[in-house]
């Protein structure tokens, strides 16, 4: 087998390891990504990774990190990612991923900025980095183990990091903010209920079990488009001022869902981005639950009892 091919395979494996939990988990079932009906197992096992940061609950205990926070020190790197690359997950790291690449095998790293998500091709970028590594000799058999491993890890980190860096930041300055009268809140909540019901929960939409999820482009592209339209609609709503913070989070969430599903739908053009996006859906589903809890908390603190069914369910649950 040609060294280039070997390197590419190793790259794929490492990418998978750091694509949140494991590559295996992706193919073990789409349901584990909560795309369709899925139970979340109760946290019975210390070998589980509750926050899906690459560190098991047991390891989190060893490192004294928060097992429900994937980035305990808040430096932008997952706890598991930091441990694997030799950093302390409790101390915010000053190292940029680019620095790591500079330190190792690659002379220049393509810079990605917020909003580049649709333009950046992570598969091409990763291939280029690997080619550069091969040309420099750091990713060949002759290189010592440390250089080789560091190089591969750095490519994987850079790829995942570029995914998140390229996500656009929503300009919430244009939101239409109104006063927090009960009437305004009730009107807003009706629209919010629709968003939650049609997009964030969507209990009826299911993938075809039999097919590889990445072969079901249409399903994901349609879903992505629906999230995009929903986000555009959510921008036009009149937001009571006491709901602005929650609404911003919802806008972010809708946007990320839209981008992730679109990226998965374009698997044929950028498979690496699609895989990272696929894993990211799990995180977004988790964030959805946090936001639902926040919505319920807001309803209680504002003494609101909207009649929408979805809010009634939430009242029964929290």
């Amino acid at each position: 087998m040609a060294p280039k091919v070997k390197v590419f395979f190793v790259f794929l494996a490492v990418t998978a390891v750091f694509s949140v939990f494991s590559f295996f988990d992706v193919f073990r079932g789409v349901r584990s990504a909560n795309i369709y009906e899925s139970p979340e197992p109760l946290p019975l096992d210390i070998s589980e990774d509750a926050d899906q940061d690459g560190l098991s609950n047991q390891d989190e205990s060893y490192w004294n990190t928060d097992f429900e926070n994937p980035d305990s020190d808040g430096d932008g790197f997952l706890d598991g990612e930091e441990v694997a690359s030799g950093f302390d997950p409790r101390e915010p790291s000053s190292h940029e991923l680019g620095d790591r690449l500079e330190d190792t095998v690659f002379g220049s790293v393509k810079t990605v900025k917020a909003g580049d998500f649709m333009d950046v091709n992570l598969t091409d970028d990763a291939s280029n980095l690997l080619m550069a590594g091969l040309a420099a000799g750091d990713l060949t058999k002759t290189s010592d183990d440390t250089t080789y491993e560091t190089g591969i890890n750095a490519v994987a980190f850079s790829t995942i990091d570029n995914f998140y860096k390229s996500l656009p930041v929503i300009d919430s300055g244009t939101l239409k903010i109104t006063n927090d009268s009960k009437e305004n809140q009730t009107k807003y909540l009706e629209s919010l209920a629709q968003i939650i019901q049609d997009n964030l929960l969507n209990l009826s939409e299911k993938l075809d079990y039999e097919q590889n999820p990445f072969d079901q482009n249409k399903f994901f592209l349609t879903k992505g488009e629906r999230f995009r339209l929903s986000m555009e609609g959510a921008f036009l709503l009149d937001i009571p001022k006491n709901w602005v913070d929650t609404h911003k989070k919802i806008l972010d969430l809708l946007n990320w869902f839209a981008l992730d599903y679109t990226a998965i739908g374009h698997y044929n053009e950028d498979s690496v981005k699609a895989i990272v996006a696929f894993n990211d859906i799990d995180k977004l589903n988790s964030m959805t639950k946090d936001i639902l809890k926040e919505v319920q908390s807001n309803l209680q603190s504002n003494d609101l009892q909207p009649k929408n069914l979805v809010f009634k369910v939430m009242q029964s649950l929290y």
Partner: protein
Amino acid sequence: MKLLNTSGFWVGFIAGLFYFSYIFWWLWSLYPLDSLGIEKKSVAIIILSVIFTLCVFITSTFWGLFGFFAEKFSKNNLGLTWTPLLLASAFVIAEYLRSIFFSIFWYGGGGAIGPHWPLGNIAYLFVDINYISRLSSFFGIYSIDFILFYGGSLIFLFFSNLTKWKTCLIQAISLLGLILLLNLIYSHQDVNLDTPISVAVVQTNIGSLDLLDTEKSISIFQKKLELISSASKTAELIILPEGAGLLSNLSRFLKNDGIKKYFDKLSDKEIFILDNMRTSVDDQPYSVSTLISSKSGLVGLYNKEILVPLGEFMPYIAQLPISLLSSDYMGWFSTYRVLAKGSGQNIIQLKNVTLKVLICSELISPGKSLSGNPNLIITLGSYSVWNSDRLAKKQILSAARFRAIENRKYLVLASNSDQSYIINDRGIIEKSGTPNTFELLTGSVVPNHNRTWYNYVGDWPILLLSSVFFGLALRKIRNGTKS
């Protein structure tokens, strides 16, 4: 060919055609097969016609075989003492083989070969006659077949051979004596009853599991939550029907700790919830039943093992006519898979009570309720697919009552549409839900720790006895032919 030239075969076969047309008529309630993704009504009619015809013809063939041997036994003059026994044995063997062949015929990826499908067994028609139905707690439904055919043959021989009425009468009295003796034993059998458990069945009214939009799904989920909340005030065990998906729906809204809190706050005391959902394990879709403790989480689970042909897996035989209809459908059907076959015992321990969990069609198979020495049987049904068809409901209810009698255990049948039931250990319906309504069916069930004879030995004694008689008869016929 020799078989087809005998009038006995055709008499049995034609009788079977009438009987099994009645038994399988409920298949038409599946029309228009939209839950299978069939859009054209004409295609649905063709598919159902093929299925119905195959079911009726295959099962009738075994009655034809019985007719063939019955004629052979009669012609060879095996004696008035032996003939009724041999006829009864031949019928038992024909019925058992019919049940096995049914599973072979409908085999496919996900299917299971075995005597799982005794649909239409005539014993089921006698569920309301206690003196007869109780016999199944000794040797199962095939022993009822045996007795019915033995008795029927005696009556026939009595009228066709009046000169030997005394022999017939002695045998009839012996048979009645045996029935009375077994009933007497049944009445005096020890039952080791445990403390009653208060149960609540969350009966739903769902048309189809797969065709619900989000609004409808949320509405159903809300109703379930209300019923569960209400049930948790009194019930120790809350039972949800097949496909209820409580856990999976909860996980849409709540993180793990939230789910734990939800169960925890249901009640101050520990209660148990038996849920069922369709979920994926190792890339395979299963129908999984989970028992959850409100205080300590998951207690046990069972993946459905016996799947329904067409409904849950695509049998090989069904792919042939479909491929002739349209290549488009063939492409779809070749990858069709609703569920994967589960494994492991369908037993879940609830403290000191052993629950036998039967998911939907598993109720039909008598053998499926035997293993593990259960104290209580729970069936999680998904009977919406039959659209409340009267015949299908009658057969399922009859099977449920027989499973209770065979094992002498309380049986709770939770259904996602139509009606739920609480059936006592004598097969009597103690409580039933209002048909096609969301409601709680509450009651008490009493776990029984003692086992019936049938629970120990299953169908083997009656099959062995029948096989021995049948073998002897064939030998006698062969010897007679030689001489």
